[in-house]
């Protein structure tokens, strides 16, 4: 019923804007249409503006990241449960396959119950990009961009850019060797200098533009790039192959499709200032 009303609105809207194509009018995202808002009160903290050289991109490319607010922890099972209670179309039995594959919320007992083995304060995982985005929309927030996420995540407990520190890379890599961290509670890893926890050491996290990563999984080719597959690809490549902790993160993003639901992947939200 709600859908019908909204598509009617859509048509009215459409009629009203046949004249000129104005960008601003059209920002209705395709998923937000039927969302009920959630009251997300998780603590956010400010990440201040700064310039950083992304791992991918030209070596001399510096990117200005404007200040933004970021959730201090990933979205938990209990927070996501509230969301699906209010938004039945995002329940496991209701979700459309185009938005989430069959292992969406795989370990839940049913549509609105977590399994007894799950910690409500553990990060929600087995979640698709569309579902993560819908949650953020419903909370009045958005998914971080790769730049925002990487910028926030290059900090350690004392420095804003700790990427050259051995300890920083060692800590990240040690996570790869710990099995089943996804079931741990959020906020058990130390907060970084911005006051944000769990960027490393808990789960992988979705980013808004994860699909801009051109890694095909064929790493030898990725280094030189394949102009036949990627237009303009010559300008994108790893700036520092030694930074293999980051390399693995980008490889992971490159292996994803937006409806994938992976056991070791969750998400957190940001808000632009």
């Amino acid at each position, binding site marked *: 019923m709600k859908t019908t009303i909204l598509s009617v609105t859509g048509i009215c809207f459409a009629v009203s804007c046949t004249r000129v194509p104005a960008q601003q009018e059209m920002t209705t995202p395709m998923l937000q249409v039927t969302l009920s808002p959630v009251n997300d009160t998780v603590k956010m903290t400010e990440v201040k503006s700064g310039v950083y050289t992304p791992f991918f991109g030209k070596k001399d490319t510096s990117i200005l990241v404007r200040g933004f607010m970021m959730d201090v922890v990933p979205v938990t099972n209990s927070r996501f449960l509230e969301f699906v209670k209010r938004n039945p179309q995002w329940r496991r039995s209701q979700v459309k396959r185009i938005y989430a594959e069959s292992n969406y919320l795989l370990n839940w007992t049913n549509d609105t119950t977590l399994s007894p083995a799950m910690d409500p304060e553990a990060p929600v995982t087995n979640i698709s990009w569309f579902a993560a985005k819908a949650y953020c929309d419903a909370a009045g927030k958005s998914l971080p961009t790769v730049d925002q996420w990487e910028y926030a995540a290059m900090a350690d407990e004392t420095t804003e850019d700790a990427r050259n520190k051995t300890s920083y890379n*060692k800590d990240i890599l040690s996570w790869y060797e710990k099995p089943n961290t996804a079931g741990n509670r959020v906020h058990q890893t130390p907060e970084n200098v911005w006051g944000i926890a769990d960027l490393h050491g808990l789960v992988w996290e979705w980013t808004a533009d994860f699909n801009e990563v051109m890694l095909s*999984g064929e790493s030898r080719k990725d280094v030189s790039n394949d102009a036949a597959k990627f237009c303009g690809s010559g300008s994108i490549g790893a700036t520092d192959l030694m930074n*293999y902790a980051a390399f693995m993160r980008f*490889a992971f993003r490159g292996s994803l499709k937006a409806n*994938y639901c992976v056991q*070791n992947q969750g998400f957190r939200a940001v808000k632009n200032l």
Partner: protein
Amino acid sequence: MSFILYPISSSNTYTMTRLKFLFCVFLSAWLLNACSSSTPEQTKIPPTEIKVVGESIAELTSPPLVPKPIGNREATKLIVNMEIVEKEGTMADGVKYLYWTFNGTVPGSFIRTRVGDEVEFHLKNHPNNKLPHNIDLHAVTGTGGGAASSFVAPGHEVTFSFKVLNPGLFVYHCATAPVAMHIANGMYGLILVEPEGGLPPVDKEYYIMQGDFYTKGKNGDPGLQPFDMQKAVDERPDYVVFNGRVGSLTGDNSLKAKVGETVRLFVGNGGPNMVSSFHVIGEIFDHVNVEGGGLVNHNVQTTLIPAGGASIVDFKCEVPGTFVIVDHSITRTFNKGSLGMLTVTGDENKQIYSGKQTEGIYQPEGSTIQNMPGEKVPDAPKATSHEERVALGKSVFAKTCQACHQENGQGIPNAFPPLAKSDFLNADVNRAIGVVLHGKTGEVMVNGAKFNGVMPAQVLSDEEIANVLTFVYSSWGNKKQEIKPAMVASQRAH
């Protein structure tokens, strides 16, 4: 036939010889004619044109085993199911490592195909895994050897197909960035493509793959050891091993054969960096498929196996004994782990091997660094009881002594004396301490057998020597004596 025209006289040897000669000429002419004739036996079908018949699920085996030979079967559609598992395993006694594996083993499962097979490859990435992976099979003709089509996220499965065109033994490996790390963590294995009709039959076939490993800690440092990218870049491995770990092919795990049997080894080198000088001590390879391809060399002592390459070797086991399989870049064998064994049982053949010489034996060394005067001896944990001493000594034994004296102290006949129920040991404790401290050269009698080798001095602390000897004296029917560090110190002072 023409030779019938010649008179045959049994008393005329000249005629006989001549006759034989002519027969040979005739035969050769006939053979040549057959070969060059315009109606040849059968035109070879190009591999791309070979038709497949039916379909079956490929038998996959964990090392050191290989699937059944293909024999005379026709080309078929072969379904291969391979699961990627990231899991903790044992690198050496007391040393853990997080391996990334194809089907749970290092190297991954052995795949056996024949020319013309159409392989439908199902690559599954276990949901518990942290990382995406893929597979590049050197037997594939096509972009990336399959890597571009097989990139798969955790909890997902990809399928791709290829037709095997070239016979040979090929490496497969993961090619996901950072590729050196994926290989260094154990993501490699072998795929065999047999020619039509199969390889010549042999009695035993085994699967061995060498790999180099790079750990944060030094060789032997206990606990879960993380991967060290810097050492990998510098090509300074801490472990060079067969089948993913120290001791995978020794003791109870050693390969077995009987006298008179022919043994074929499918040997690969996963790398990522080291090139293998593959050698079996006391055997000569009758045939070697050089680099795993069609060129067959004969009577080879040591064959070079490049990283990302393979070799097929075979030989006949003529005499019983333990044949040590090594990378003849020899410090790797005695200091980094690339040591395996083939145990051949059966009757002696004194004509072939007298059993008294020590030819073919290397100066046996343990895997601790030997005789570097002035070097600081690392601190070892202090034992406070006999039991603790035994426990600590066991790990010293595994690292330092086991390669030669064997897991159960049984030694190797004619080469390394036994430590089990050893009259030599039990007779004189201080002499034993001295041997460990200073080494031993020349003839010794142990349990009635004569040995004439060299044991080098070991760079171990007093504590470690006390521990390892306490372990030895407390095991395998020896006299259960505790050796104190002070006793070692007093011998050292001598």
